[in-house]
Every structure is written in structure tokens, then in C-alpha cells.
């Protein structure tokens, strides 16, 4: 949907004239694919190394942007998409009808390894990985102020945490939204909003990005950051004095999905890449980086368990209804902003 008021001919003519000063040429493409992703840079680098080894004849060009920036870019580029594949991108964003309309169904090889709840019924997308919510609690502050370690969402309402909590803003952060959506689903809307009202009284700041709350808790800016598990694990490995807490009511989570673009100019290679996403080799690499790997034969790495994840992740995940979360997003975010953004 482009809104143009100037006639196209006039715009063209103006642009031709302007080009007199900016000469250049468009790049050619053959034997390579362009992939848009929101995987974090460090895990992405590891996945790509593997992909390049397994698919030596395909040049995989990757652009990495945050989930929201990437969605804005794909919607703006909708009339002439630049990418062949979407990879590692929030499933609740993938089901936006404006995005779904750009996808081509493809039944990738090995799709049967992914349980049905982690993929689209019409094969427009599937998710091999995901991330789950968790709290990052700063041990130094807890000790210095003699505060109890929280174990549940309910614990966060304790008056002694007043002004010590931070969480991501669901209007700008996918992580923020997965927390709010899971609370509303597990408690029901009435009780859920009442809980969020109470939580708001303890909240020092709603932060724009999903990893920041954990990072500011790690740096000792605030005591407890509501964030996601892998951020906590990484920061523990970095040496920050924090503890990861998975709320015992169940953790909200988000899937990272992959899809083929209808507009792809190189579908053969794009399909091979999608097949590769489902291979054993790729799964082994996800295993080193992701809290959730949807393929059936996952073995939880030792270091994740040391940081506090259980061997079977499904025991701590809340059973999120992704479709509900996606469909109600605008309504919930608007309500959330009305209540808590001043």
C-alpha cells in the first residue's frame, strides 16, 4: 500500500534528472540467496559458519535487524522484496496477514521432526528454535539489601521490590509482549490485568528492548530485570553476578520461524537452505545457543542446566497460544499503553 499523489511520470522524470548527479549500477544476483533474520549476531555467526560448510555452493547473504526493525523494513519493501528467505524471526510477527501474504508454502525436508504446534498448518512457516522468558536477579543487590530471591510472578508483587523491577515495554519489544500475553493467558484477562496493575506499582522503568532489562540488572542498575533466559545464561557466563529465575507459574515464550518468500528469484537454493535449517547438523548448532529447540530429539546442554534450565524445557514452559497472542496484539498493547504509559 503506497500512497502517491504525484503522478508516477512526474516522479520518474524528477528522479531521472536527479540521477545525473548520482550514477551507479544495480548488483546482479545468481547462485546466491538473501536471508533476513533477527537471530542475535553471535549465534547467527555460529549458524552461518555451519551453513557455509554444508552448502558450499550457495552464497548466503544475511541481513540481521531486530524483530521490529525487520518487520518495518519488510512491510516498506513489500512492493519489491529483496530477500528470498526469512529465518529466525518471531512467529507472532510472521502471522501478521501482511507478512503471511508474501510467503510461499513449502514442505521442507524433515518437517515431520517439528511438532505441529511449532509450524503453520498450511506450511507457510515453521519454527526450529525459540526463546523463553526469565528473570535476571542481581545477587550483589539482593545480598546488600537483604532481599529475598523471587521464584514466581506473584513474588514480584512484594512491597520490598518497589522501584527495583524493570521489564521490556510490550509496545516496542517482542519479549515484553510475550510476558504480558502469557500472563493474560495463564491468569485470564481480568485477573491478568489486575496482576499487571499491581506489578506496575513496583516497576521502576519499562525499557524499549527485551535484552536490556537483564543487562541493566546485570550491571547493578536495578535488582530484577524481566527478560529472557538466554540473555541471563550469557551474562552469567560473562561473569556478571546474577541468578536466572524461571517463574514457577510457567514461562512465556516466542518461536523463531523460517519461511520462503513468494517473490524469491532463486527458489531452488532458497528451498535447499530451508531444508538445511531442519538438518541434524543445524540442530546441533541450535543446541549450543537456544533455550528452545523444537525438533523432537533435543538434549539440553550442560552449561544451560548449570545456569538453571531443566533437562526437559517443556516442564517449565507455559503452553502459549501463539495465534491468540498474534491476533490480540494491537488490542492488548493499546490497553497496556493506556494503563501504564504516562
Amino acid at each position, binding site marked *: 500500500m*503506497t*500512497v*502517491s499523489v*504525484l503522478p508516477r511520470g512526474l*516522479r*520518474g522524470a*524528477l*528522479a531521472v*534528472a*536527479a*540521477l545525473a*548527479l*548520482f*550514477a*551507479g549500477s*544495480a*548488483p546482479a544476483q545468481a547462485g546466491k540467496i538473501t536471508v533476513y533474520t533477527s537471530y*542475535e*549476531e*553471535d549465534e*547467527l555467526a555460529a549458524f*552461518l559458519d555451519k551453513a557455509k560448510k554444508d552448502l558450499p555452493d550457495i552464497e548466503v*547473504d*544475511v*541481513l*540481521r*535487524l*531486530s524483530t*521490529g*526493525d525487520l*518487520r*518495518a*523494513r519488510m512491510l*516498506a*519493501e513489500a*512492493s*519489491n522484496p*529483496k530477500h528470498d528467505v526469512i529465518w529466525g524471526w518471531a512467529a507472532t510477527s510472521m502471522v501478521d496477514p501482511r507478512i503471511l501474504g508474501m510467503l510461499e508454502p513449502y514442505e521442507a525436508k524433515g518437517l515431520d521432526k517439528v511438532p505441529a504446534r511449532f509450524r503453520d498448518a498450511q506450511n507457510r512457516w515453521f519454527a526450529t528454535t525459540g526463546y523463553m522468558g526469565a528473570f535476571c536477579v542481581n545477587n550483589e543487590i539482593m545480598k546488600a539489601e537483604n532481599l529475598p530471591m523471587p521464584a514466581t510472578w506473584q513474588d514480584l508483587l512484594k512491597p520490598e521490590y518497589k522501584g527495583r523491577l524493570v521489564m521490556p*515495554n510490550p*509496545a*516496542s*519489544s517482542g519479549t515484553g509482549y510475550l510476558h504480558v500475553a502469557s500472563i493474560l493467558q495463564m491468569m485470564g484477562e481480568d485477573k491478568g490485568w489486575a496482576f499487571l496493575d499491581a506489578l506496575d506499582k513496583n516497576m521502576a*522503568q519499562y525499557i*524499549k*528492548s527485551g*535484552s*536490556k532489562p537483564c*543487562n541493566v540488572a546485570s*550491571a*547493578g*542498575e*536495578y535488582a530484577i530485570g524481566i527478560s529472557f533466559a538466554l540473555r541471563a545464561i550469557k551474562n552469567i557466563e560473562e*561473569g*556478571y*553476578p546474577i541468578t536466572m529465575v524461571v517463574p514457577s507459574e510457567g514461562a512465556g515464550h516466542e518461536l523463531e520461524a523460517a519461511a520462503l518468500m513468494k517473490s524469491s528469484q532463486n527458489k531452488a537454493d532458497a528451498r535447499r537452505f530451508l531444508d538445511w535449517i531442519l538438518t541434524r547438523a543445524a540442530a546441533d548448532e541450535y543446541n549450543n545457543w537456544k533455550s528452545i529447540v523444537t525438533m523432537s530429539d533435543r538434549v539440553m546442554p550442560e552449561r544451560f542446566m548449570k545456569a538453571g534450565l531443566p533437562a526437559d524445557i517443556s516442564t517449565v514452559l507455559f503452553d502459549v497460544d501463539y495465534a491468540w497472542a498474534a491476533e490480540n*496484539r494491537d488490542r492488548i498493547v493499546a490497553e497496556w*499503553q*493506556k494503563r501504564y*504509559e*504516562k
Partner: protein
Amino acid sequence: MSLAGPRPGRAALDADRLLLAGLAGGATLLLVVFVVLPLWGILGYSLVTPDGLGLGNYARYFGDPRFVGIIGNTFTVALSVTAATILLAYGFAYALQRTTMRLKPLLRLVALLPIFSPSLVQALGLQFLLGRNGLINRSFGTEIDVYGFWGIFLADLLYAFPHAFLILSTALAVGAQRLYESAETLGASSWRSFRTVTLPATRYGIASAVFVVFTIVITDFGNPVVIGGNYGVLAVEIYNQVSGQANFSMGAVIGVLLLLPAALAVLAERWIARHQHASVSAQSVPLKPRPNRRRDALWLAYCLLVAAALLAVVAIVVYASFVRLWPYNLSLSLRHYAFDVQNGIAPLWTSVEVALVTAAIAVVVVTLAAYANHQLSGGLKRPLYFLAILPAAVPGMVLGLGYILAFNDPANPVYAIYDTILIIAACNIYHYHAQGFLLATTNMKQISRTFEEASATLGASRLTTLLRVTLPMIWPTVLGVGVFFFMRAMVTLSAVIFLITPSTQLAAVSVLYLDDRGALNQAAAFAVCIMATVIGVLLLTQGALRLAGIRGVSLIR
């Protein structure tokens, strides 16, 4: 023509008119293509509602007390930062241009530090210094909470300071010695001569600086997003709407609201410019400040204080990039310089390439636009001026999205440069067009028309006058425009995020995402690489000028 005497002949007059018309027309055309068209696409979205085209989004916007509150916040912070910045920067520029105090080159360099780095660095530095677990609170046991209004105020003050300082410094650099001598002879106190001579002569510079700082603050995204806490401002709200909720319509509405101050600023500037007269005329003797011990010592103390604040924020970021784990393990380490991102340090070199291309094209395009505007009289002058400074009020995110909407279309000829570094360069040039244009214009306005008139009277064509009179007088400014664009291109963020491709990744984007991921020390380290590169390029250029036998030219203006 020789028969016509010293006056230029008809043919020459026609050629002059043609040249001016060509320059003005070309500048306008480029502005229309690279500013108006992209905005048009984005602004069109502000009228798209579920029930067709209409003003529904605006009604919804102003009917929501939260949005109205955000407008109030934005203006509160923008006005207070502008007032504080202009006051501090005027003092600093005055001390550097009008006293004989020592340490001037060093102070100048420190004052400019914030423009060598992405805007995120100020907020990051403030967080390290004044955060709840920052250096100050940790060292003194205080409980300062900087997040919110004061965080944005301080970060944007630091961020905007060099921009105001540069404009005011240019305005204060030239002055007529004789006017001050007369004032002194007539027994005027120094305060009186400041009020009646200095202040009026720098009015235009102040107006430009106010406009530039105000628009920098209302469109800045990097600082409020890091250190703004729950204090909502418009530029961040655009991000929430566009990136958080994929709601382009509301994002566009806010974009339109941010354009209004630009229109107001143009009106204000015209009003001031009507009273402006050139302060350097053919008869003037250049200003030479005379020593005055007590005055110089006081100004030096003031400048050192301001410089200490500017330096502290950058220094702590540099320091944090070299420690093992800020703030827990402060042993020194180089490990953060081994960047664990897809392309490692490569984006830095892409950024340098983009910055050089940006600077090279901008020098020509922006200087000629300023020249055309300066020479024009009549109908086209105001629209050209307005177009030239309009981009200042456009948030980067809006411009970047506008570029995709307008140019990602094989039917559009600009598509030929889409996906190349040229589109990023074009975006940089027009994103920062206003500042470059004002830089050149401020300088041109201060050069009396007498020179150019004398040249014309002697029979020189406009082109000859431009090449042999005007350019030789303003070339340091032209070089300064190039340096300005080089620096902006190295650090700019929000617009280019929509134009980078897998093969054109930029350094500032790496800093943003490293920070976002929580690799604070790596983000600091990458920012240090950017700063070092910019300063390195400046030193090389300065060295080249020295070798060419040119001294006393400040590259950064």
C-alpha cells in the same frame, strides 16, 4: 564586449542568469527527489485509516491524553536543552574566538568530541557515570537517579553542544575591529559593546544554532531510548509505532507533527535575517582579540569546566571498552576488541567508504545550494531555503522508510543506485542537509556583497566571481562542510538502518546492536574504533594541509 567598457555585456548577463538558474534549479530538483518525494510517501500514510483516506489518525492522536503528554514532554526537553546549549556554547565559542587565553586548540578538540561518536555514546557514558550503579553513585554512596528528563537533558546537551558551538564559533570568528575601536573610543563598557556590537552581529548565528539544536533534540532517538526511562518523547514514540507495532500511519502522524517546528523556525529565521547585515565589509580590518589577564583567566576556568564534563563522558566509555567486566572487574583487557559479530570489524571500513563518498558529493551539492540561495533574490529564494533546511526536522527513521517507499521500485530511476552505498550516501546528505547548508550560508552571509559587486563591476562573469572571489574566501568553510558530512556519515544510525544490505553493513549499526544485545563493553569498543577513525582522518587531512603550506584552517566548522 570589449567595446562595452567595464560593465559586463548582455551575453555575459544572460550567461550569469543561466548559471544561477541552473544551480538553483538543480539544487531544488535534488531536494524534491531526495527529500520531498520520500516524505510524500511516508506522510501519505498519515491519512490512511481503516475507513479510507482522512484525518482520523490525527483525531485519534489528539484525543489520546498519552500522546498529548508526549508532545508536552518533547517540547519541554527540547526548549530547555536548546536554551542551556546555546548559553553554554556561546560562552565557549566567545572565549575561543574573542580572548587570548591558552589551550585553545585543545579546548576546541574536546568541545567537538561528541560529534566523533554515535549519539548512543553520550547516553552510554552518562549511564556509566551517573547510572544507579554508575561511578558517582558507587564512589560516593549517593542515590542519583538519572533516568528520565534529566538523563535526556544531559545527554542531548552534550550531543548538541558541538553543533551549537561550531555555528556560534563561525559567527564569532569574524568581526570588524574598527567597530570595537569606535565603541571603545566612545567610552562604551565592554558589556555595552558586547550588547550593541557583538550580539547583533551574531544574531544570525544564534538563530541558526537555536534552530539546529532544537531540531537535533526533538528528532534524537539514540539518547532518550537509552536513558529516557519512562519519560516519553515523540522520536521514541515513532519507534514504538513503526518498529514495535508496525503502525506506519501513527508513525507518519508523529512525523508530520515534527515537521511543524521546522516551518516555525524558517519564519523566525527570515524575520531575523531581514535585520542582518554583513559584518565583514571591504573596509573592515579583521578582528584581533587583545590580551586581558583577568578576563582570559576567568574564561579559561569556564571552558575547562565545560570541557571536563564533555571529556568525562567520552573518557569513561573509552575506559569501559578496556576493562574486563564493567563495573565488577576493572582489570584491563583487550578482549572486547575481538568483535564476535558476523563480519567483525568490516562494517567500519564500509562506513569509511560511505563517509568519503558522502562528503565528496555533499561538498558540491550543499555548497552550490547555499551559493544559489545566497545569490538569489525574489520568488525562488524562500522555497529553496525552506526545502534546504526542512530535512533537519525529519526523524531519521521517517526518512529511511521514505527512501524504501519511494525508491525500491524498478520503475523509479533512482532504483539504479538502490542497494548500493550511493543510496546511503544520498540519505546521509539529505538527512544532514540543513546543518551543512546553514554552515555554508552563515559564512556567506558574513562576506559582504561588496566584494562580489566589485568583481562584477570589473567585468567578471558570475562564474569567474564564484571561482576567483567567493570560493577563495569561503573554501575553508567548504572543506568544513565536507568534514562535517564525513563525520555525520560515520556515526549516523536511524535512517540508514533501513538502507543497509548484507554487503553494506555500517559501523554505527553494529554499535547499536551490540549495545542492544547487552555486549556493553563491545559496543563501547566499537564506538571507540569509530571515534579513532574519525580523529585519524582529521589528523591526516590537517597534516596534508600543513604539507601544502596552509596553516590556521580549522577543519571542523
